[in-house]
């Protein structure tokens, strides 16, 4: 019972709690990463577009302004004037194109995307185009130049600028977003672990509490923290434990009361019974002279009074066990000798054989043990008496020192074996119950019904145990195992 209660939490708790913690962590992580990615992605895209739009807008405005500024010279643009326009527009990465011929940065003309040149020519509007040149993002813009009253001059101005700086800023944004996401993931994991802990701690405490309660510690109560569902669960657990403790305490009190009542009654009966036995013994002695029905009645009276006295003695004995007042008076005892004397004293020698038969010269080695001889005598007497009453001959009693190393290390066994009808399996353990009757139809027997129970309690007091083996053809075998070092 205790072992089972201890095993259950240790085998089941870890996998369960790890599962919940892992689930919580994964869920937190997914939510955080999902929302973080969405937010970061959206803000990344808008920030990138803002950066690009801003730089492009600035670049295009500058191009327009430069053309206007450069053309502020009165005589423009013809011949050398076109070259002057180039100087004014900004010589670096700028080219003036007139009739497909570039003036200024020559090689630039070939790098301008054909699509952009076509668009500028055909739409006659300011246009721009982004390309990638050997891994570097580049912005090209081109515009036709018209006079202030809108007449096309045939002049086109193209400009190029690198977007590497913008690329760096955008990459910085990406790195920032990654760093923030990583930090958020770490925070999510920590929060998930804390949350899991806050959930799992009361659950674990409940599990331990339940195990303790199951193990018999009825005073187990758990501290109620907070006011959430788990606190409610803990409160319910405490209520249940309190009610269980109440019921068990009440039952124990009632049982103790009834046992004390039995003990009291037995004690009260003892004195009048002693007087009655004295009287019935006298009556018994006179029975022969009464003759007829009177003699029979006197014998019945005597027998039943003795049985009643035995019963009361047994009840008092049982009461001592129940009250925990049974005491052991240990001495070194030769078990074989004790068994033989018990059988001889009770007058069972003709029907009971002690195995192995003691040699007349006492050559058989003594089997000694530290035990209470009076109680051991009761055990043997009750077991053998039971065999004599309910079993059939041959009845044997074997005494052995089970020196087998291992389970029954250093034990002494007393085996009482009869060849009666045997016991059905379900009856075997119940034979030690008080007032157990093997045959329910048989209301009365010679015994008190307490003999085997008393034997059981006595053996237990010695730290030993009684095993019952029985099969229909073989009769019943009671084996008493007593530890040789009876320290109890």
């Amino acid at each position: 019972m205790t072992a089972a209660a201890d095993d259950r939490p240790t085998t089941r708790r870890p996998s369960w709690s790890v599962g919940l913690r892992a689930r919580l962590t994964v869920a937190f992580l997914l939510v955080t990463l999902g929302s973080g990615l969405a937010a970061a992605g959206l803000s990344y895209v808008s920030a990138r577009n803002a950066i690009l739009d801003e730089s492009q807008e600035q670049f295009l405005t500058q191009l327009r302004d430069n053309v206007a500024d450069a053309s502020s010279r009165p005589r423009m643009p013809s011949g050398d004037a076109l070259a002057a326009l180039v100087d004014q527009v900004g010589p670096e990465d700028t080219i003036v194109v007139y009739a497909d011929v570039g003036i200024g940065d020559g090689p630039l003309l070939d790098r301008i995307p054909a699509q952009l040149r076509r668009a500028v020519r055909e739409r006659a509007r300011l246009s721009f185009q982004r390309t990638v040149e050997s891994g570097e993002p580049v912005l090209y813009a081109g515009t036709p130049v018209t006079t202030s009253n809108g007449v096309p001059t045939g002049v086109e101005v193209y400009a190029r600028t690198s977007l590497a700086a913008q690329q760096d800023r955008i990459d910085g944004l990406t790195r920032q977003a990654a760093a923030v996401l990583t930090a958020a993931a770490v925070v999510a994991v920590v929060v998930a672990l804390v949350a899991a802990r806050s959930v799992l701690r009361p659950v674990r405490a409940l599990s331990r509490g339940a195990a303790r309660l199951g193990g018999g510690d009825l005073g187990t109560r758990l501290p109620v923290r907070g006011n959430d569902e788990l606190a409610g669960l803990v409160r319910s657990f405490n209520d249940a434990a309190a009610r269980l403790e109440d019921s068990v305490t009440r039952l124990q009190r009632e049982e103790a009361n009834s046992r004390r009542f039995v003990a009291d009654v037995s004690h009260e009966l003892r004195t009048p019974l002693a007087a009655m036995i004295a009287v019935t013994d006298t009556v018994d002695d006179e029975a022969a002279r009464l003759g007829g029905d009177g003699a029979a009645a006197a014998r019945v009276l005597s027998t039943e009074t003795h049985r009643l006295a035995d019963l009361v003695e047994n009840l008092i004995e049982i009461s001592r066990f129940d009250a925990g007042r049974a005491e052991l008076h240990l001495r070194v005892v030769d078990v074989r000798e004790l068994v033989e004397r018990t059988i001889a004293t009770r007058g069972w020698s003709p029907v009971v054989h002690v195995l192995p038969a003691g040699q007349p010269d006492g050559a058989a080695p003594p089997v000694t043990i530290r035990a209470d001889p009076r109680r051991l005598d009761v055990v043997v007497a009750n077991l053998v008496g039971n065999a004599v009453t309910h079993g059939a001959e041959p009845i044997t009693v074997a005494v052995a020192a089970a020196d087998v190393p291992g389970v029954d290390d250093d034990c002494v066994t007393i085996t009482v074996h009869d060849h009666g009808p045997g016991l059905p399996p379900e009856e075997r353990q119940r034979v030690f119950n008080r007032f157990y009757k093997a045959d329910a139809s048989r209301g009365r027997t010679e015994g008190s019904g307490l003999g085997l129970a008393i034997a059981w309690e006595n053996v237990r007091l010695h730290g030993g145990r009684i095993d019952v083996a029985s099969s229909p053809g073989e009769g019943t075998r009671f084996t008493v195992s007593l530890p040789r070092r009876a320290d109890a």
Partner: protein
Amino acid sequence: MTRLCSWVLAAAVLTVSACGIRPTGSIDAGPGARASWESAVVYFLHDGRPYPAVRPDLDSAGPQELVEALAAGPTTHEQDVGLRTEVPPSVRLVVDGDRLVVDSPGRLSRAALQQIACTLQRSVTVGVDHADCPVP
């Protein structure tokens, strides 16, 4: 599960494609740049098609002078970039009531007519078919 995978894949593709600075096509960004001056424009021929050339000194000139400028031909620099003219020096422009009459001793080529039409379209209403001038 397959649907989930395809969603994840689509999201990944979108994410990757949304990263960095992507190349574009040519994008319209508004009207072109304007110079700060007004100028007359005459049309010479470039690859057989009318092509404008500024003549700031003719800004307030009449049609006759513009046609004379066409006959005078492109400047040295304009010749260097491949402009030429087909309008002969003998061409005269005669005002006949509300009409302008191009008077030439010989037969004018279609390109020459286009040159004249495109050059004059700014100052007068010209009824020349297929005047294939560059858009303003």
